[in-house]
C-alpha cells in the first residue's frame, strides 16, 4: 500500500472504478461526459467552472486534470486564477454569511 493517501498516477486509473460496478461506473462516466459537452455553456466555460470547484473541493486529482484541460483549451493563467478567486470568494462568503446566524443567536440570547 502507498504511504501517502494521494498518488498522482492514480488519476490515470479513475476509469477502473467501473470494474467493481460496471453499471453504475458506466452511468457515472456517461453522465460526466455529457455534462462537459458544449451546451448553453461552452466547453471552455465549463472547464473554468470545474477548475474553480476542483479547488473549493480541494481535490488534487481534479486540480491536476482541469489545470491541464485549461491549458489544452488555450485558457490563460490569468483566467484560471480569476476563476479560482470566484471559488474562493464563494467559500469565504459562505463562511461569513453564517455570521448572520451567529449575530441572530447573540441577539436572541443576550438581554
Amino acid at each position: 500500500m502507498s504511504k501517502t493517501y494521494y498518488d498522482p498516477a492514480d488519476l490515470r486509473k479513475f476509469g477502473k472504478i467501473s470494474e467493481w460496478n460496471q453499471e453504475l461506473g458506466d452511468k457515472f462516466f456517461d453522465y460526466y461526459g455529457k455534462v462537459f459537452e458544449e451546451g448553453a455553456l461552452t466547453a471552455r466555460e465549463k472547464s473554468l467552472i470545474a477548475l474553480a470547484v476542483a479547488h473549493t473541493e480541494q481535490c488534487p486529482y481534479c486540480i491536476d486534470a482541469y489545470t491541464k484541460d485549461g491549458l489544452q483549451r488555450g485558457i490563460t493563467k490569468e483566467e484560471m486564477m480569476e476563476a479560482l478567486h470566484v471559488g474562493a470568494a464563494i467559500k469565504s462568503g459562505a463562511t461569513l454569511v453564517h455570521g448572520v446566524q451567529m449575530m441572530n443567536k447573540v441577539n436572541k440570547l443576550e438581554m
Partner: protein
Amino acid sequence: MGKLKTQSLQKRDSDLANSNRQLEILSNGIFADGELPTFKTKISETNQFPLKAKKLEILQINVGYMCNQVCEHCHVDAGPDRKEIMTRETMQQILDVIKTTGAHTLDLTGGAPEMNPNFRWFVEEASKIGISDFIVRSNLTIIRANKKHYDLPDFFKKHNIHVVSSMPHWTRGKTDKQRGEGVFDMSITALQELNKRGYGMPDSGLKLDLVYNPNGAYLPGDQVTMEKDFKKALLEDFDIQFHNLFAITNLPIARFLDYLIASENYEDYMYSLVEAYNPAAVENVMCTNTLSVSWDGYLFDCDFNQMLALPVNSKSKHISEYKEELLEGRNIVISQHCYGCTAGAGSSCQGVVTD
C-alpha cells in the same frame, strides 16, 4: 520552466542529440515492461499494421536545420548553430522530381527555410514548374530578423506561396516563453506585413495559415475552437487576419523529448498520447500520403522519422534514385513517437486528420 536555451542539443553535446538514444528511450521503460502498448501493438489491435503508404500527395522538403530561433519544443533541434543546409545540387535533383511527381503539394520546411542561401532560387525554379499548392513554413520572425528578408512577403506574393506560420498563442507571454523573448512582437509585425499584401484576408487567394502547438506537456485542444479564439484575439488586439489554424501535437523527439524528461513529464505525456489514441486518425496519418526529403536528399516517411534517422523502407532511398512507383505501398517505419499523430483528432503538418 528554466531559461530558454540558446543552443541546439547538438551544440550542447547532449545525449539526446543522438537519434539512437532517443529511439532507445521511446522503446524502453513504460513500453518495454508492458505498462503501455507499443504503437505496433496498438495499431495491430485494429488490423492497421503494417501501415502502408498510399498515393503520394505531399512532397515535404527540409532545406536545412539552420534557424534564427531555438524553440524549446523543436523536434528538428534547429538553431543558428546547425550547419546542415541543402545544396543547390540536391535542390536541382528535387526540381527534376517535381516535374514528374503526382504530388499536388510542395511543402518547404526547415529550420528556417529562408536561411538557405539558395532558397529564393529554388522557389523561383519550383514555381515555374507549376504545382497546385506551394507551401513555405515560415517562422515569421525571419521576415523581421534582417533587412535582407524584409521583402519576403512580396517575394511570397510574387510566387503565390502558401504561407504557413507558427504562432503558439495570441498572448505575448505564452509565445515568448516557448519561442524566445521578442518573438511575439516580431511575429505580429510580420503578420501585419503579410496582411498588407493581401495574405490571410477573407476571400484572398494568398493563403496564410497559422500553426498552433501547445506550450508544454499537454495536447492541443479542439482545432475549430482554438481557431475561433485565435481569430477573435488577433483581430481585436492587432487587426490581424488569417485563414486556417492547424493544431499540431508536439512529438516526443529531440528538444521536446529533452524538455519532457527534464521536467519529469515524459511518462504522463506518453500516457496522454496513448489514452487519446484514435484509430480513425491512423487512417489518414500524414506519412501515408507524404514523403519527407532531408537536407542531404534522403527520403523519409515524415519529418519526424527524418529527425530520428529512420529512412524509408524502400529501394528508393535518395532523391537521386527517386522512383514514385517503388515508394507507393511501402511499409511505414513506426515507433512510439507515432502516437503523437494519432492522438485525439490526429495531428499532421496540415493540422487534424479527422472530421
